[in-house]
């Protein structure tokens, strides 16, 4: 009841001088509006920058098979085949810090269309999630392949811009068939341009296909073979229908074993391996957690005892991640500084006008004291007035700031990002600005002597 009365009194006092109230509020309105607009535009820009850097692969984690060594001779990364597509699936399912994950099977071979041919830098057999991992989901044309294509080892592929230029002279390749090592793949989509990566390699020089199709129909083994003529025919002849049309690899050098012979000398059953698992962490901050989770998971899956070396290695883009973190940090701090300055300016404005207001209303204060207001009643009234002004200013400021940043988005096409946190913070901060900067004038008012206040002209 008391609080209600005080608020009512404060509101009435504010209504008595709307001009002064408006001017006082203006400082806070502008302050909060600046904060909100800054935060929205800033965090929009920040998110855009973050996204750009992330699209370069800053959040990516590359899991490679481990090193084989024999008699002290190490064969280098990837010389054993320890990663399986099931590992990749498990990483996707069981590591919460991982946004998405894909198996990667690499081949290096010729791609033919009509009378043109080209050896792309990258021919990757992947899961559809690859595009998400690489932040590459917006296609220039057509659509991506699906998990079903992966399951069926369908011969479909996506082409990078460079291939479209080289093989199709920039005409639409959708629905056409290209031959990858004499296997016909239907083009379902064209990737958007991505340009060179940090090492200057053309990332658009790429063919993406279901990893099963690359693995079983093209590669045979994971060994890269640039030279098509030397490709082994033993694994791909079964599926490659084109071999009949182009019997270049038909001549077998070795006698084909009969079924009986094959049964007599059983080959060890080899699990399907992939060349690499590519994962994307949810954010840069999640990378260490993601590495830990993947390590634990794969050690468990590969049954590696504690103390034994891992048969895989995980690499992250430390350099890029660092750049990303420092950029984001810089932006946030910058915004915070600007926001604080404008709020302090608004707060000082409130204090000034409240002080003037106390002097101007000395008579009123004296009267209120004469009719029985205690010091704390006066203190409370002026404090509530300041806080009410600040809250109203805060609300209007939020609207104004939001409107402003929306206009910026509308006319300048800057990215903005509404942040509920900033709005809550703005309300809290404007209330505390009201309390902090309203306290001194209110205290001054409450300390007035009623007799002198009444006599004051």
């Amino acid at each position, binding site marked *: *009841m008391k609080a209600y009365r005080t608020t009512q009194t404060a509101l009435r006092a504010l209504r008595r001088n709307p001009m002064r109230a408006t001017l006082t509020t203006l400082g806070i309105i502008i302050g909060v509006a600046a904060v909100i607009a800054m935060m929205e535009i800033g965090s929009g820009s920040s998110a855009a920058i973050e996204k750009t850097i992330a699209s370069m692969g800053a959040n990516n984690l590359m899991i490679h098979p481990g090193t084989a060594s024999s008699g002290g001779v190490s064969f280098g990364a990837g010389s054993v085949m320890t990663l399986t597509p099931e590992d990749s699936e498990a990483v996707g399912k069981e590591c919460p810090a991982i946004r998405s994950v894909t198996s990667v099977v690499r081949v290096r071979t010729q791609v033919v269309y009509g009378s043109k041919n080209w050896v792309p830098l990258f021919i990757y057999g992947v899961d559809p999630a690859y595009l998400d991992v690489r932040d590459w989901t917006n296609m220039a044309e057509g659509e991506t392949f699906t998990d079903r294509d992966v399951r069926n080892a369908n011969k479909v592929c996506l082409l990078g811009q460079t291939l479209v230029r080289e093989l199709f002279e920039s005409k639409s390749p959708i629905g056409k068939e290209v031959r990858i090592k004499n296997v016909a793949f239907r083009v379902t989509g064209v990737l958007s341009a991505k340009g060179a990566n940090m090492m200057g390699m053309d990332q658009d020089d790429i063919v993406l296909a279901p990893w099963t199709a690359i693995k079983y129909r093209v590669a045979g083994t994971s060994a890269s073979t640039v030279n098509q003529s030397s490709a082994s025919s033993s694994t791909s002849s079964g599926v490659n229908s084109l071999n009949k049309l182009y019997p270049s690899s038909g001549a077998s050098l070795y006698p084909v074993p009969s079924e009986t012979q094959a049964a007599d000398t059983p080959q060890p059953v080899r699990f399907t391996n992939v060349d690499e698992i590519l994962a994307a962490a949810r954010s840069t901050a999640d990378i260490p957690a993601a590495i830990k989770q993947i390590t634990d998971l794969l050690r468990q899956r590969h049954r590696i005892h504690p103390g034994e070396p891992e048969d895989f290695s995980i690499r992250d883009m430390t350099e890029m991640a660092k750049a990303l973190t420092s950029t984001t940090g810089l932006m946030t701090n910058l915004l915070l500084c600007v926001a604080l300055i404008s709020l302090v300016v608004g707060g000082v404005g409130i204090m000034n006008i409240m002080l003037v207001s106390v002097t101007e209303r000395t008579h009123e204060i004296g009267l*209120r004291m*004469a*009719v*029985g*207001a*205690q*010091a704390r009643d006066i203190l409370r009234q002026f404090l509530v007035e300041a806080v009410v002004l600040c809250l109203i200013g805060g609300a209007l400021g939020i609207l104004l700031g939001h409107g402003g940043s929306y206009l910026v988005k509308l006319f300048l096409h800057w990215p903005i990002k509404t942040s509920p946190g900033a709005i809550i913070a703005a309300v809290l901060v404007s209330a505390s600005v009201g309390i902090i900067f309203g306290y001194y004038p209110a205290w001054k008012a409450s300390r007035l002597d009623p*007799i002198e206040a*009444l006599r004051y002209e």
Partner: protein
Amino acid sequence: MQLIELKDIYKTYYIGELAIPALRGITLDIAQGELVALMGASGSGKSTLMNILGCLDHPTSGEYWLDGREVSRLSADERAFVRNQKVGFVFQNFNLLPRTSALDNVMLPLAYSAEHLPDRDARQRAVEILERVGLGDRFHHEPSQLSGGQQQRVAIARALINRPSILFADEPTGNLDSHTSEEVLRMFQQLNEEQGITVILVTHDANIARHARRIIHISDGVIDNGAMSGHPQSEAAKAGGAK
């Protein structure tokens, strides 16, 4: 029992090292239901005395019994409470809040006392009092829309809203013409006679003091005459008023 008993009240102001005595040993009784004029030239100490009587200030030394309670040593907040409950003030320049309706002005003291009182009852009480002072048709007028006499009547209504036992009027007619002065003074007499409210008129004007039944003269911080109720002087004042 006396409503007001002052015993040897001193009030000294200090300006730096300099002591300025404003009241020098005031002893005074005022009974419930009296209509008293406190008279003196400017600088005589009558305003200081009124401030002490009205609990706006405390004396440097001496005892002040108000309604059976010693109030001279109360803290500022306790005095504020006493003012709210027992005392009403009417000032020379009305002291109404600008741009505030008569009704809201009258309800002002309730904000500090009657937390338990619902809004509607508070309003009702203000309406009744405004009607009693003859402003039944001016509830929503702001001070700037009212004449001086009407403003002073709003101020009286405000002083009465907490049903005080004492009403202090500090030069209540100082800003009014003689005709409205007469009306306002008659209202004080009426309040005094009909409701038994003790009224203390502070004035320098003998014509106004004449409306009181008892006149206390003060000069240079001491009471010349009229200190005790039932003093022959009060009869004389009455006689003077009747002239």
